[in-house]
């Protein structure tokens, strides 16, 4: 008689992967709407290009690996990767930049390591870092938020679409006219020029905490994140640890030196902190698995984001922080292995 051997985990998950991914996508919808509202239709075009290339690359690599493409496409992980990429990319991004990021994310970061469940790096962040390092100019084309009092020329839907497809701006328009520095860029360059935080915070694109528009997107992302928590798709450990790891050093250093270091509110709402805490760091594959491990992993990401923003040469450090901690996950999981019932604390 032959016994079938099953490998851990033995419990049946309450919901399937496709179901989970669809809920993650649904939770991102309010934030996506806010993104389009404040930063124009570029987000939609980026998302479409990213989905096209992520899903295409997924199907092509599955075929190359001699597997059924449907198996991988039906779990929607490629679409989630595409959505996270679209959130990271500036609203004016030529299609080939998005395509490079998508192909790298799916082919190299995901399938070369064995496909979904085996990728040690978060695919979206790996793809984003590649284009961030490889195309520094294109990754700067953030437009100004649509909040009225900023002196700025907005590109129309068709002009944005034309830019996505060709990488060329309309005649008689320059990059300086359509792009604005992000709050994080302004803060970093301002501090490098020895200006005070209060002075930088008085600039027109700055809002109550970080940048106009950015705060609202942050709020909607947090709303989606809370929905995921409520639906028990993610657990609280990683988001709380990421935010604590980022905000505790930010608060302490702000209290010590309020003139030269931005405060916790700025760090919370600027860049991708909230998106990272709820949607990026919580990737079930590349994150740590034990409870203590999740706390360590999240805190590591938070502290790294703070360190990169404060001392690094890049304005935001979310992607680098996540990739660095992804590398540390095997060690974290090993060191925080839960005690086996019946064994003493010493035995491993």
């Amino acid at each position: 008689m032959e016994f079938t051997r099953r490998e851990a985990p033995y419990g049946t998950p309450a919901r399937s992967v496709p179901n989970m991914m669809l809920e993650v996508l649904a939770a991102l919808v309010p934030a996506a709407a806010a993104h389009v509202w404040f930063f124009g239709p570029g987000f939609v075009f980026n998302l479409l290009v990213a989905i096209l290339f992520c899903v295409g690359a997924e199907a092509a690599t599955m075929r190359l690996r001699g597997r059924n493409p449907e198996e991988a496409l039906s779990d929607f992980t490629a679409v989630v990767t595409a959505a996270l990429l679209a959130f990271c990319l500036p609203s004016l991004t030529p299609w080939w930049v998005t395509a490079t990021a998508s192909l790298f994310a799916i082919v190299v970061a995901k399938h070369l390591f064995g496909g979904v469940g085996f990728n040690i790096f978060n695919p979206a962040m790996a793809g984003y870092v590649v284009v961030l390092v490889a195309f520094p100019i294109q990754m700067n084309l953030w437009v100004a938020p649509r909040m009225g009092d900023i002196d700025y020329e907005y590109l129309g839907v068709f002009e944005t679409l034309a830019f996505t497809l060709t990488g060329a701006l309309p005649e008689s328009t320059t990059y300086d006219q359509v792009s604005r520095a992000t709050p994080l860029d302004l803060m970093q360059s301002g501090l490098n020029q020895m200006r005070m935080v209060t002075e930088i915070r008085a600039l027109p694109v700055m809002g109550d905490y970080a940048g106009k528009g950015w705060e609202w997107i942050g709020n909607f992302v947090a709303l989606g994140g809370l929905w995921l928590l409520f639906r028990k798709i993610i657990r609280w450990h990683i988001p709380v640890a990421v935010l604590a790891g980022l905000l505790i050093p930010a608060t302490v250093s702000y209290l010590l030196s309020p003139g030269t270091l931005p405060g916790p509110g700025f760090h919370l709402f600027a860049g991708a902190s909230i998106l990272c805490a709820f949607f990026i760091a919580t990737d079930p594959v590349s994150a740590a698995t034990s409870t203590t491990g999740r706390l360590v992993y999240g805190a590591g990401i938070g502290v790294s984001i703070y360190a990169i923003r404060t001392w690094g040469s890049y304005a935001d450090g979310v992607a680098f922080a996540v990739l660095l901690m992804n590398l540390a996950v095997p060690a974290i999981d090993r060191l925080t292995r839960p005690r086996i019932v019946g064994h003493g604390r010493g035995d491993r």
Partner: protein
Amino acid sequence: MDWMTRLKTGLWEDNPGLVQLLGLCPLLAVTTSFVNGLGLGIATLMVLAGSNVLVSAARRFLSDEIRIPVYVLIIASLVTCVELSFKAWFPALDRSLGIFIPLIVTNCAIVARAELFASRNPVGPSLADGIGMGAGFLLLLCAIGAFRELLGTGTILGGLDKLIGGEPLAGIAVVDGGWLLAVLPPGAFFSLALAIALKNVIDRRNRATRATPAPRDAGRVAS
């Protein structure tokens, strides 16, 4: 052990970069262009062939306890010769390779060949081994250098003036601009990984076409 086998081992089957994964530091660091790869490859080839011959000739006089320091002395003197000749005849190439010419002393591919092959074999085969291994390393450096240069700056044979002298040459421009990442450190790791993967694919194809077809899942980790 004839010459052809030694050469084939060095060039393909036991390629120091692709299979033994030795000497990766210079391999990853200088291969930003074909010319840089070629320059360091030639320097390594000369040192490796020379050190193999000298170590093999001296192998009867070396006691086990001091053999490694003696290898290092032999290699270091050869590297000094190569470095001085580069400075004399290819000053521009020497400047762009910088510290990596003197660092050939610490290239573990060279010490490994001295220890594993030259100290146990006569002078003839040792020379063949040195040339084979050196040529394998040289070709890999050139291939990765050319690949990264083409991707990163969009040129072929850029900076050839460092080797042949004369006016600065930009090389043949294939495309305008390039993919910056390829000439940055990550590009080096990606290129090496792709080269190793390519070698494994070719090896597997070759094995499959031979008499007994290898099982399809031979190399796959059980999951």
